[in-house]
């Protein structure tokens, strides 16, 4: 247990009005002793330094949408909410570059960009109510990935608050840059293991003038897979080509058939021509009612269910969908990225291991994106990886295990 005096030093590190009630900051039914919502990066750095000196564990959090990604925390003393860091630092529409503080939500950022006919081309689960810091720390993507870059590829640079209270920059604000190590890439997807991202610069994109969703139904999942592959090779103006099992299609408001769901995006002539190509391949393709993409994203980001993400070669997407169905999941896959999502009310560790074996035998991987505390303790959410270097980095960037201790592995 953490002694009250050790925690008291954190209170002295920042103005009293940034302290919050710890209730509402629970993770896996554990509440922290203290919670803070700093207003700026210097307060973040001051809190981290105080926590590091006091030997307590801090868990940074933004939109709180991905707290069931990773192993259960070894300890949880202090919640650090990044919501106060929500300024747009610099936006130059003509340069297609944007610099923001990390607590801003993707939705607010997209709103600003939309006013200038631009957007950050990324669709993470569960929706746009994710913080930019969380988006980067979790590095999650949706149906657009593969057609469009991942967050880490759009990130031009970042400022990170270290556990010792330093503010460290890498990269820059220009769209092409190889100056120094890409520290921001190390922090992207690191779940805050090495520091707290406080500012990020992005390359943004023009909004496509026209978007259109088409659903092409097939008789079997294999047929849907073949159609998806064919369309992927047809150079469509597409930003998503996804394969849905029948029960998945039904779950998001479509007819219960094996379905290829396509989102076209681009110039009107390109979208029209792409529509024509799709209809030539599948005369039954039509524009579905409802909001299938939003529903798919929310299923992927479901924090209550067990959710797995396979990464497999595109030609194995159908196999992974079938494997996930065999384990009781509803499942869907994205042909360009090879990501296959399986969603079930719950899964046991043996099932996750079997699905992981299916992926690794095909040169892929499986990440447990969400699951009960018990499941995340029983099975490594990330699978095998380079452990020695990760420990070595942790020892140099967060020697005392102040940040998110245990979320990757024992002590890390």
């Amino acid at each position, binding site marked *: 247990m953490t002694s009250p005096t050790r925690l008291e030093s954190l209170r002295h590190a920042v103005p009293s009005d940034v302290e919050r009630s710890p209730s509402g900051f629970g993770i896996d039914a554990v509440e922290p002793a203290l919670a803070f919502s700093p207003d700026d990066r210097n307060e973040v750095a001051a809190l981290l330094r105080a926590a590091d000196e006091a030997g307590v564990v801090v868990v940074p959090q933004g939109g709180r949408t991905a707290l069931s990604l990773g192993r259960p925390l070894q300890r949880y003393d202090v919640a650090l909410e990044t919501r106060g860091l929500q300024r747009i630092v610099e936006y130059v529409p003509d340069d297609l*570059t944007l610099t923001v503080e990390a607590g801003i939500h993707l939705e607010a950022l997209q709103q600003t960009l939309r006013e200038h006919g631009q957007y950050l081309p990324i669709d993470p689960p569960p929706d746009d109510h994710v913080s930019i810091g969380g988006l980067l720390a979790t590095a999650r993507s949706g149906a657009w990935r593969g057609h469009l870059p991942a967050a880490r590829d759009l990130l031009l640079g970042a400022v990170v608050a270290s556990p010792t209270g330093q503010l*460290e920059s890498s990269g820059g604000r220009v769209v092409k840059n190889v*100056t120094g190590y890409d520290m921001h890439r190390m922090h992207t997807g690191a779940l805050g293991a090495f520091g707290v991202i406080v500012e990020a610069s992005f390359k943004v994109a023009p909004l496509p003038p026209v978007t259109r969703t088409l659903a092409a139904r097939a008789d079997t999942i294999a047929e849907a897979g073949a159609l998806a592959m064919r369309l992927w090779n047809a150079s469509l103006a597409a930003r998503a080509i996804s394969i849905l099992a029948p029960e998945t299609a039904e779950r998001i408001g479509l007819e219960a058939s094996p379905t290829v769901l396509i989102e076209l995006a681009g*110039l009107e002539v390109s979208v029209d021509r792409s529509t024509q190509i799709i209809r030539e391949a599948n005369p039954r393709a039509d524009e579905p009612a409802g909001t299938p993409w939003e529903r798919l994203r929310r299923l992927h980001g479901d924090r209550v269910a067990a959710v797995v993400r396979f*990464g497999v*070669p595109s030609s194995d997407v159908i196999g992974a969908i079938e494997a996930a169905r065999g384990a009781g999941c509803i499942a869907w896959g994205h042909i360009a990225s090879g990501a296959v999502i399986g969603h079930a009310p719950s899964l046991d560790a043996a099932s996750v291991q079997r699905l992981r074996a299916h992926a690794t035998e095909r040169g*892929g991987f499986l990440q447990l994106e969400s699951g009960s505390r018990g499941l995340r303790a029983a099975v490594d959410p990330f*699978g095998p990886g380079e452990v020695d270097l990760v420990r070595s980095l942790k020892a140099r960037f967060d020697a005392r295990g102040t940040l998110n201790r245990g979320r990757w592995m024992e002590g890390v």
Partner: protein
Amino acid sequence: MPTTASPALIEALQRAVGSQHVLHAPEDLIAYEYDATIDRARPDAVLFPATAEQVAAVVRAANQYDVPVIPRGSGTGLSGGTVPVKGGVVVALTRMNRIVEVDAVNRVAVVEPGVVNLQLQEALAPLRLAWAPDPSSQRICTVGGNIANNSGGPHTLAHGSTVNHVLGLEVVVSDGRVINLGGRVLDAPGIDLRGLFVGSEGTLGIVTQATIRLVPAAPDVRTMLAIFDSVDEASAAVSAIIRNGVIPVALEMLDQEIIKLVEPRIHAGYPLDAGAVLLIEVEGLSEGVAVEADAVIEACRACGAREVRSADTQPARDKLWEGRKVGIGAIGAAAPAFYLLDGVVPRTKLPQVMRRVLELSAQYGFKCANIFHAGDGNLHPNIMFDPQEEGATQRVLDLGGEIMRLCVDVGGSITGEHGIGLEKRSYMEWVFSPPDLAAMERVRLAFGSADRFNPCKILPGGHGCATGHADELARHIAKPGVYI
């Protein structure tokens, strides 16, 4: 001939890779003292491993004898990245040049680091696939070098730098282990050590195999040549094209100095009195290409283009591109030596920065030819000079420093694709604070590679490394016409 390296080290290296694959006589080492820059330093030995196991054995031998290890591809680097400043063992990866596998269905290839970029492109072309990085040195540069430098090229505008196209890496790290980073599929879970490693300029380890992502050929491509009276107008057109919502796949500028050098050689029809031309490429479905091409032409005209030519057949497109491809060589033929700079500025700052680059060059009394990735704001001023002229080399380096400073002052960076290497170590402090640099140093320490792999590169300082750029090494011109 006597050698400077210890006989015991040479024996250990010969055991590791076979004696016929180790060079250690001084006359054999000369060619490995430099890359495409003017800095030179002699290695103790150069060796040519054939497998990851051999590379690992070399690293273990280097650990035992405590000498640096410097990975090297074709030696086309433009920042002194492979110059063995502290001696040691140059590991030339040119024998590891197999294309291990091409999985066309999944758009993945597995290659060894010594595969030449263009050879890979030629193997992929019949499959209508490509490896996106296309640096100007692609006829000779290696995939391993592309990865080490996070290389770019004209098509980086659409496809991003090398790191976006690397799925997984097999690397030998400082303790001699062979480890795997990333995977065979996008977005492998775990800490992104792959992303950290790409662009680390041989300072963290040696790539022995790479799993790369391939891009498909577009169904239709249109290349345009827009002719302007001034660099100013051409720079303004770059912003105008992108502001209109068209991101071309390539958007390159050639200024008058370059046009005058290349046109007599290739007769591509670049007007000799033009102030600048833009080479602009759009691709996709034919219907969209036509609309985007019209938008590009309109933006160029609105910025004062006197003419925009368009090519949609392969031979016609190749002709327009030829001027870009032979440009650097043409400078080499026209001047005893030239300094090829690499800096990045926000696109909207291009007009003011280009004006200032030309002013500064004139002040220093040098001709400056510009041929560069305008769409990315990635400048490549080429300063032509005669190294035999008293003090010229130093003045060129000073001018280069001023141009880099200018890039930093407008919010840009000191390298977009050539890397920091040796050349720009001392400029790092213009961009990064001591805590920023300390964080980068911790990465090097975490990889256990601070003194083992490619010492005195990227980061300023370092044990036993000289501190300043100018006084770092005795500089020599390797041969007439070489880039520095």
